């Protein structure tokens, strides 16, 4: 099918905490620091709001990579949220890796409201990794994405 010939356009879901990383993304925007358009942000109050179900859901619905960004340890607006997020996501990423889903498809990073540059860099780097990996064929839902290999 002709679909195969089109260049790979990944889909990256980025969960950003409202107080640091979302503001970091805004700063990247204000500073006109480009990162690929395939990165699309969902705003959450805190990185600890990101339920692993959301990450899995994104993959099911055809995301090729999922990144979670929160305040640096110690800077959480809610004091401890990112510590819980850190544990949860570590275990989730480990489980995904264990099930053979490429571990480079998931990432968590700390990006403060002042780190517009870091936001762009992290997203650029993550996107590069996803491009290198190609389409996500190891976790998804056949009904949602025709692209997932049989």
């Amino acid at each position: 099918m002709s679909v195969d010939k089109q260049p790979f356009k990944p889909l990256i879901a980025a969960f950003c905490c409202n107080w640091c990383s979302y503001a970091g993304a805004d700063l990247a925007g204000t500073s006109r620091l480009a990162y690929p358009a395939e990165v699309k942000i969902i705003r959450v109050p805190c990185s600890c709001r990101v339920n692993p179900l959301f990450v899995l859901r994104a993959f099911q619905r055809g995301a090729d990579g999922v990144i979670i960004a929160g305040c640096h340890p110690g800077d959480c607006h809610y004091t401890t949220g990112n510590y819980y997020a850190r544990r949860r996501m570590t275990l989730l990423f480990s489980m995904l890796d264990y099930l053979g889903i490429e571990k480079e498809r998931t990432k968590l990073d700390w990006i403060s409201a002042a780190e517009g540059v870091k936001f762009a860099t992290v997203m650029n780097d993550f996107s590069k990794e996803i491009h290198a990996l190609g389409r996500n064929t190891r976790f998804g839902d056949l009904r949602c994405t025709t692209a997932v290999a049989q």
Partner: protein
Amino acid sequence: MQRIGVFVCWCGSNIAAAVDIETVVQAMKSEPGVVYSTDYQYMCSEAGQGKLKDAVKEHGLTGIVICACSPRMHEATFRNAAKAAGVNPYMVEIANIREQCSWIHRDRAEATAKAVVLSRTAVAKVNLNTPLTPGTSDVVKRALVIGGGIAGLQSALDIAEAGYQVDIVEKQPTIGGKMAQLDKTFPTLDCAACILTPKMVDAAQHENIRIYTYSEVEQVSGFVGNFSVRIRGKARSVKADICSGCGLCMEKCPSKKAKDEFNMGLNNRRAIYIPFAQAIPNVPVIDREQCIKFKTGKCGLCARVCPADAVDFEQQDSIIEERYGAVVLATGFHTLSLEHYDEYQYARQPDVITSLELERIMNAAGPTGGKLLRPSNGKAPKSVVFVQCVGSRDTTGCGKTYCSKICCMYTAKHAMLIREKYPEVDVSVFYIDVRTPGKNFDEFYRRAVEDYGVRYIKGMVGKVVPEKGRLLVRGSDLLDDSQVALEADLVVLASAVEADASAKGLATLLTASIDTNNFYTEAHPKLKPVESPTAGVYLSGVCQGPKDIPETVAQASAAAVKVVGLLSKDKLLSNPCIARADELLCSGCSNCEHVCPYGAVSYIEQELRIHGRNQIRRIAKVNEAICQGCGACTVVCTSGAMDLRGFSNSQIMAEVDALCR
């Protein structure tokens, strides 16, 4: 199903230059729930907001999506506009197509496609939004300050001056705290008592302040604006209301063996005592463990001599129950116990003392009447060696890992004062670093070295050895790369500052978190340094971390301002985007309670009707006045019973779906 209106903003050319507005407008028209989709040059302008209001009327909109700049910019603006148009402000969602789209993507097709995705994601969310209303709660116009040291006093005075009632709870028989024990204060060398005691008097006489000394907080319930607190006033055995403070009882008391805590145990006091002359209240207290009457039943001399008949051996603890709108924690510190520091011989050699003990020795009201004398033999020392960082910056596990912050300065102060009064005494200081970042601090330290000839040795002391009635201090001089051994008559240890022992218990009572060193954690290390993570609980002074007097006072006043700000409100409006537990789904596991940083979740036994049968279940209840809406609880809730309004599981999943479509 909602009736959603989508408004795509050009932001002049900021968005329109990179995003094809018309494509976005058209694309939104076929999204579920959208009944109206339009665009405008500047949505945030009066005219733009007017357009929104008109559309609400014309199309009966129940939900609004603004595709514009970051919600951090104008979310409030559009929420207000929606409110004015009769739509619940929480039915508004913003698609950030400027900062996160038009400003960073140069390819117009790409940017337009992304703007469509971001917009439909916002639409997907609004479809599941529900109108939210902030909760309200009353504010009790009274504050509680726990701790009657300089921090607590300052906070209390500031709050009282602003016109609000304040209660101070102090566990010692007198207010004043550690500062009352100090002799002079750096870097100005003015006398501590001279600046503290007037404040103590101010507090005692202030019509808005009540002081509960010799009292402790026993129980706390409630939440911001309305804490219920139980205070236990320990029995003084002296009726405070009729005691005139004449002091006769103390003179006659035959029990003289108790260590005088105020003088750091350097001398003894009576069983009935007032800690120091300017104590407030000026009412003695009977130390029941020392009192002969209490121990043997005989004596009672004090009662006999008391002209006011104020001594009451039968007195019981009193319980005070009071409600407060805010709580200030000002529990302060004590110095680290050095019993285990064998190398310094503190426990064995009376001439090895702590800096606070030296304060008392230097103080005119102290055990030696202000003369520098060796505790062992009462003779004047010829050589004094100071050792810094005893128990501070200690990674061996024995002491504290942090810097106690004030030791460098008070050691310089002590050294300078000794050299000034007793120029014949040699004074040396062992230090790791000298840290003097403060107004006039470094100048002060340099004066000690340059003008007063204090010998500073960079290095640690390895051992203090008693030798022929003197002390041999062995250490290293890192700058000279040599071992040194100094003979000293007095060794003064700068023992680390440690959070007061009461901090931990209070933290549990108030669900105010503490760090590994038992210092209270601030709500945000930078932006909320005087708030605890628990709403309505504020931090004042060293209980939050080591600091000197001016910093303590500054923080105390800052905390007071926060309290005043809170008490000045009649009602508290709470953020409506908070957690809520579905009682039929909740299984009562307590996991949400464990992760809540604010102690907002509690459990109740509730009778529920399930399948036509009444069942008592243990279920989570979120206190809406306390919850801040972080969502930590929602993720540990496996059944999804706990959900966050405004960022619900289904909303975020709908966003994910729309984003990945």
